[in-house]
């Protein structure tokens, strides 16, 4: 019942705040990693280099699929913004369904930008179906495809260290976030500006994906405060001997 109530509240808040944000756009706090991403997109278009976007191996039939969907929302926007580039971005993923969705999202992005002829099916790739085969298949893309920035956003585990290391070796920018705690620790050690926790889900808002993404961030903040109040109230009640 609590879960259903929370879901209903989140849905209502999202709808209400989306309508509000359409009229008055949000001012987001600066996150250095996303500023770097926006710079990297511009630079890739100007330099004729590529963006490599890795969406992890989040299975869409599990809760891990949430990070993959957040990555796809960001990809859609990045595809639109890089449609003018000679070298389209390459998207790698470690889950077959996610790879198909990444191809669809790329095509939608190009179509929205009026450049559907830019789309190549080979730019949305399945690189492997196990964690390490996914990493092993992703590393050559960073090495061989004239990549200037790697955007790794999704569900990744310890294998993310290999991807981060390959990016470092190629001297390309790395913007990385994961919903997995071990991967977050790895990215903290191996990226210039780490993205921690729910910052992964802010990707869409920071690349200008629309009012609903801005509203999502606000709803997350409101729900977080509600959870904090509930935890504190629960602790206080327990301290006072009430159950």
């Amino acid at each position, binding site marked *: 019942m609590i879960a259903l109530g*929370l*879901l209903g509240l*989140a849905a209502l808040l*999202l*709808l209400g705040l989306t309508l509000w944000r359409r009229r008055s756009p949000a001012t987001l706090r600066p996150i250095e990693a996303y500023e770097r991403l926006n710079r990297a997109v511009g630079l890739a278009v100007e330099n004729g280099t590529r963006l490599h976007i890795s969406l992890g191996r989040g299975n869409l*039939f599990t*809760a891990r699929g*949430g*990070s993959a*969907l*957040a990555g*796809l*929302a960001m990809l*859609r926007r990045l595809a639109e913004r890089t449609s003018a580039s000679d070298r389209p971005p390459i998207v790698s993923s470690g889950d*077959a*369904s996610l790879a*198909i*969705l990444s*191809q*669809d*999202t790329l*095509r*939608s992005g190009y*179509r929205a930008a009026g450049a559907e002829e830019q789309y190549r*099916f*080979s730019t*949305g790739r*399945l690189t492997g*179906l*196990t964690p*390490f085969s996914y*990493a092993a*298949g992703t590393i*050559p893309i960073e090495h*061989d495809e004239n990549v200037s920035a790697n955007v790794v956003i999704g569900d990744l585990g*310890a*294998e993310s*260290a*290999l991807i*981060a290391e390959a990016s470092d070796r190629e001297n390309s920018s790395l913007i990385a976030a994961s*919903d997995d*705690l071990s991967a*977050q620790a*790895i990215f*903290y*050690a*191996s*990226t*210039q500006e780490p993205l921690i*926790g*729910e910052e992964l*889900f802010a990707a*869409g808002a920071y690349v200008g994906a629309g009012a*609903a*993404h801005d509203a*999502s961030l606000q709803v*997350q903040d409101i*729900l*977080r405060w509600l*959870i904090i109040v509930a935890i504190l109230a629960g602790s206080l009640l327990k301290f006072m001997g009430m159950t």
Partner: protein
Amino acid sequence: MRIVPVVSAIAAISAGIIVLLGYFVSIAPLPDLRLLLTDWSILIAGMAVLVGIFNLVAVHMEKIRTRKKGSAYGALLVLSLIITFGFGLLLGPDHPFMRAAVDAVIVPVEAALMAILAVTLIYASMRLFQRRTDAMSVLFLVAAIIFMLAVMPTPFGPIPGNQFFLFVEGAVATGGARGLLIGIALGTLLTGLRVLFGVDRPYGDN
């Protein structure tokens, strides 16, 4: 107005709402419909693996055809895939030959990558201060070193005070991890709602 995007959006949103309601409301036929839709999605996911493998082969064939860098590895991959797939179809996945392919090739290769991973992590930690020199980086590294010292076996037994370090780090790390996981759960919830409302349509054609 093109009809395909509208139909695909209606189908995706309706299926999402039915599955979600099936979790919370146990009024017939919602739970049965939820199971049916989940079964269908598992079948589609199975087909998606085949499509994904076709994509993998097509990408490497293109690499071979255009004689790109690393095309020899691509050829090796395609050849291995065809041989393994063919034998898998003929002999079945439980045949000793298929098991040997996993035990003698895939397991050692992944173990080797795991070993490389250990070295990579140490190297990344060593280079942390080259990237950032701030209080949080120092705290991150000191906490990692103390935790490793507290849990590692030594010839002299546990280091003095290891239980205290483990307790402090356990309490702090568990609290921090839960905070991060709550944030991720909220992000996942909102992302799911956006897909359910049709704001984000990753099934494309919008």
